[in-house]
């Protein structure tokens, strides 16, 4: 084990796969010589050179168009979209082309492509650079959607995404880049589509993703010490495929479900999970399913307002405490 930051784990995961497989290439804005605007790809250019680690013009459509062509013709590209907000200009390529190619060619053409992107708020970047948009990708058939919460999962899930024969949307949470954690040294790979129970609990299950996982864990600590409530926490890790098996097991156990989402409320991923659980585990529920989300607003850039908008430890604690009564 080595202690790495979330951002260092990104570079380590990419390097692991580029060393293993020479068809893996990496392209994006300022990712090469500059090491990425979030310094998540430092050292890759020096190690693998300009042919495999490429800076691109400031055109997200160009990045993904080139990456798509490369993937169709035998390479395994990793494309970086600097801020996930910018995916909005990419949807034709992502939703209509990348997600559909395998299906429309009857499996003759595969799309081993990873789109990495920095997602989420908390950094005072304003409404156009702070959105948590994992739910945008979740609703497009043909895409896998991954969002790790720890450095170890960044490395392991990024490796799995690169090896996956189909397109994977890989959301790195900006507010987690400086967080630290133990990361296995040497080759490390995780399975996409398996949620992780990061804290066992008997009274209520809190399902969280990415930056909401550490907040849910802190809230669970407080729920136990201040309110005597045993809250389990599930790190979902990927939205597609969705690990309903783990979700159901936890719902059967605690009969109470809370989701904590950074994405805005309407059509957030928690709504989908609520719907599935209400349909398939209705008779196990002992309280209404509760969703804790960012409200349906453009995210403010003012410090205090942004902090109020995003689900906080305090809000999770209070909501669960009152809900469990």
């Amino acid at each position: 084990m080595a202690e790495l930051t979330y951002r260092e784990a990104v570079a380590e995961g990419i390097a692991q796969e580029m060393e293993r497989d020479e068809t893996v290439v990496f392209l994006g804005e300022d990712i090469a010589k500059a090491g990425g605007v979030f310094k998540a790809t430092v050292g890759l250019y020096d190690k693998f050179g300009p042919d495999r680690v490429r800076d691109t013009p400031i055109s997200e459509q160009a990045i993904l168009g080139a990456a798509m062509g490369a993937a169709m013709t035998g390479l395994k590209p990793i494309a970086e979209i600097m801020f996930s907000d910018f995916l909005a200009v990419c949807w034709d390529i992502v939703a209509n082309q990348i997600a559909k190619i395998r299906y429309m060619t009857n499996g003759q053409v595969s799309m081993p492509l990873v789109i990495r992107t920095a997602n989420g708020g908390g950094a005072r970047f304003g409404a156009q650079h702070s959105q948590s948009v994992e739910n945008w990708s979740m609703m497009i058939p043909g895409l896998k959607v991954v969002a790790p919460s720890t450095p170890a999962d960044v490395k392991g899930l990024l490796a799995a995404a690169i090896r996956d024969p189909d397109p994977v949307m890989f959301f790195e949470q900006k507010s987690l880049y400086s967080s630290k954690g133990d990361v296995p040294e040497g080759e490390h790979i995780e399975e996409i589509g398996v949620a992780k129970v990061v804290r066992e609990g008997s009274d209520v299950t809190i399902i969280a993703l990415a930056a909401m996982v550490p907040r849910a864990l802190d809230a669970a600590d407080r729920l136990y010490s201040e309110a005597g409530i045993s809250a389990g926490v599930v790190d979902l890790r990927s939205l597609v495929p969705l690990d309903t098996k783990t979700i159901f097991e936890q719902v059967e156990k605690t009969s109470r479900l809370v989701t904590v989402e950074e994405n805005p409320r309407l059509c957030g991923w928690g709504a989908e999970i609520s719907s599935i659980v209400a349909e398939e585990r209705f008779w196990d529920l002992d309280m209404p399913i509760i969703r804790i989300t960012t409200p349906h607003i453009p995210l403010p850039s003012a410090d205090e307002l942004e902090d109020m908008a995003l689900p906080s430890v305090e809000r999770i604690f209070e909501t669960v405490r009152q809900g469990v009564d």
Partner: protein
Amino acid sequence: MDVLMPQLGETVAEGTLSIWHKNVGERVEANELLFEISTDKVEMEVPAPAGGVMKEILVKEGETVEVGAILAILDDGTDGSVGPIAPEPAPSLENNAQHLTHSLPAASPSVASAAVSPNHDPRRRLSPVVRKLVAEHNLNPDNIDGSGLDGRIKKSDVLALLQRNAPTTTDQASGSSTSLPSVDGKKVIPFNRIRRVTAEHMVRSKSTSPHVHQGVEVDFSRVDRVRSDKGVAWRAREGFSLNYLPFVARAVCDAIVEFPHVNAHVEENSLVVYDQVNLAIAVDLNFEGLVAPVIQNASSMTAVEIARSIAGLAARARANQLTPGDHLGATYTISNNGSFGTLFTTPIINQPQVAILSTDSITKRPVVVEQDGEDHLVIRPVGIVTQAFDHRAIDGAYAAAFLRKVKEIIETKNWEAALP
């Protein structure tokens, strides 16, 4: 339409079809009694899921099949495109408002009707999982203490109740297995469900609780006087004989007021002491098994009321009409073996309770009594009352003091006044 073996409880995986009330070719109306089943927990009558003509019976009487198995095919006039439907043994609810807030997928008509209430008490707004558990275990929500907001019943409240009552010494007997022929001079009688459950519970009780037995000799003269004075009138009025048991039961409830720790459960590392006495009475089912139905809140009853409750429960037990609800909540158990002339019995505790009392034969004996400084030999009705207690929960002196109190009450209470 397929008629399926219904789910009768969370832990019940199979059931035995005991009686078909309709033969092939007969017409049955929706909700008319169609068949009866027995499980290790309960005997149950199941109504027809729909009206129609019995087309085929696939599971014969006496056969044991898994929950969900197809028992019969009912020609209900549809072309068969309707999916299989397990009988829903609940009566249909007439009132929509009730249906929205109080309908239950109940496992027995009696429970469903008990659970339907016209009011909007938050206590009665049952969550899905509570509804499911209540239905599966045939509970009446009115009897469940809710610990949630405004008294709402939570899943944990139901589970706690079920755990308190879970394994009993006693469940419904199911079928005789003594009519097997002998082969090579012996016959092998496989344990039926009630024997298996009893066996499992007895072994577990003995390995869980260090049992200590103590007995006291009790002079039943005062009780006897009441019985001989009022027995005939009682029998004429109540329709059953007045035996010693209600007096012992009342004395136990009185003594528990002073020694509440015998009226308790052991849960993990705690003794949970109950305010009210829910008194289980062991009832033998003609040597086919043992049940211990419960007199709820016996501590609030007079000896007369206890006598009526015991008679009612015993009659229902022997008629196989107990429901799982009759087994719930026991905090203390009395076993009565006196009718067979036993001197004393060393009973096994009905988990998770901490004590059980046995009454045995009461016979006339020569007894030395001291009067005015002189010893006199007199004839008195005397019996030994034995108690087994869990030494984890209480100690010998406490248990003995409790027994002494029971003895004192039986011997000195003004029973004439207690009985009309």
